[in-house]
């Protein structure tokens, strides 16, 4: 059973988004890290760039595959989690405590259109 947190919203590409004040934290879900397996490298986006929803923003590489992370909501990259540079396995250990990047000036509409915990759980059940 994948871990799903109530205080996040989710994309169908298995990313979570959590809003704190005016920033949106983005990471990959428990389902995603489990499917990827042992994560060996994370490529993070450049700070200050605006990315649209659906645009490739980052890459997560595991021993099995290299997966593109598609930006879940329009926004400007405010911070990238550099802890992942040397320790990509943090995503396997706790994917909710370790975000990939933080967006500012993000689209609230697109955030609200994401799945809530219940909807994401239902979505996972269909896979």
């Amino acid at each position, binding site marked *: 059973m994948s871990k799903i947190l109530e205080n996040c919203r989710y994309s169908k590409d298995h990313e979570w988004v959590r809003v704190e004040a005016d920033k949106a934290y983005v990471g990959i879900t428990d389902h995603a890290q489990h499917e990827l397996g042992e994560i*060996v490298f994370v490529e993070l986006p450049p700070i200050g760039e605006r990315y649209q929803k659906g645009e490739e923003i980052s890459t997560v590489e595991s021993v099995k595959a290299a997966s593109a992370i598609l930006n879940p909501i329009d926004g400007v990259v405010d911070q990238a989690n550099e802890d992942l540079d040397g320790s990509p396995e943090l995503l396997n250990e706790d994917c909710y405590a370790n975000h990939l990047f933080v967006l500012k000036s993000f689209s609230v509409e697109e955030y609200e259109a994401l799945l809530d915990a219940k909807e994401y759980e239902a979505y996972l059940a269909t896979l």
Partner: protein
Amino acid sequence: MIYPYIPHTDEDRKRMLASIGADSLEELFSHIGEDLLLSDSVPISHGKTEDEVQRLINSIAQRNVKGIPFLGCGCYDHIIPSTVKALSSLPSFVTAYTPYQAELSQGLLQAMYEFQSMICEITGLDVANASLYDGANAASEAAALMIGAKRKASVVLVSRTLHPFTLQVLQTWAEGTDNSLRYLEEKDGVLDASMLESLLDEQCGGLIVQTPNRYGLLEDYTGFADLLHEKGMLFTICSDPLSLAIQKSPQEWGADIAVGDTQSLGLEMAFGGPSCGYMAVKQELLRRLPGRLVGASVDKQGRRGFTLTFQAREQHIKRERATSNVCSNQALAALMTSIHLSSLGWDGMVEAARQSYVKAHYLAYHLAQLPGMTLVWDKPFWCEFPLVFSDAKHMRKFLQELRNEGIWAGVRLAQLTRQAKDELVLLVAVTEKRSREELELYLAAARRVMK
């Protein structure tokens, strides 16, 4: 002793065609354009024996003319120690196709690892791949890397002084990938550095330059790396790797990517190929490096071993998002380069590069004294220099007379570029292999013609 060259009977052929559903051999080739098919049959009459055909072909081969080559333009006649042929022709290397269960072929992987290590040492950069097809291919991979590394980049800035073939391959790459090239023009035989800053904009992913350049001249890249890096762009330098034994390395110029062709390190001229490209990058670009990459590791019992590594970059894992479509390398040619370098050692490489330099400068100095030809730009060079004639008639006569003496005097640049401005430029290459006698023979003939 009469044998048919092909053991299949007409009956065999019919059966083979029938099993794949073709009526005739012509039908088998029907998808190939008519203009590409041989219209006349091979001019060897039917019914000749193998021995007779061999004699015929030998008699044609004997019409080849041998000469002392002062030819270069990217392909040079350097001394190759006999170890190169002796070792690289071992059947275990020659007949091996790409190892699909790569780690079973530890010998081959080790050879590739050594190649990578030597390319790193020569270029000064952190990581090199196990080779690419040739120098021009390596330059196009550098272009792709620079575009991929910068978000929304679609333009690569290239120097007009790149080798003409490298520029052509880059043009083909740009066309096929919907990117474009922007040119840094040349001035007095080298790139015009004063124009660099004005050509850089948001779309630009980086710059590709070459030293020694298409004329054999050495270029000055002072300040380039800082300027490019400040704007978030990458810097690629193409070089003849042998020249790096005595000139500033790409790393010393601050380059992020070094590419080139290893023909000058252990590969015969062989009518221009096959050759072998090298590519080295800084550590932070490792995951964007195309091609195969061999790493050193330890096995279960703690013994040193070699493995293909970082394959997530490659197309069999990353599919259409792979850093490159290159999924092969020039293993045998890279092996020859590795053996060549191992035989020479660093001192031997410096010696070959120095001797090439000294001999080329001796010849250039004395040719420059003659009327009707000049070293027009007076720029530093290494083993090749541009001799510019005062008129086409003199140039033709010069080439013909030296050829009569058994000397291939140089390459006409216009043959490669088909540009009028290059009509009177002859590129003369002198390697460590040219003896004093050969240089004097060249000079004596030149003095007779150009008096």
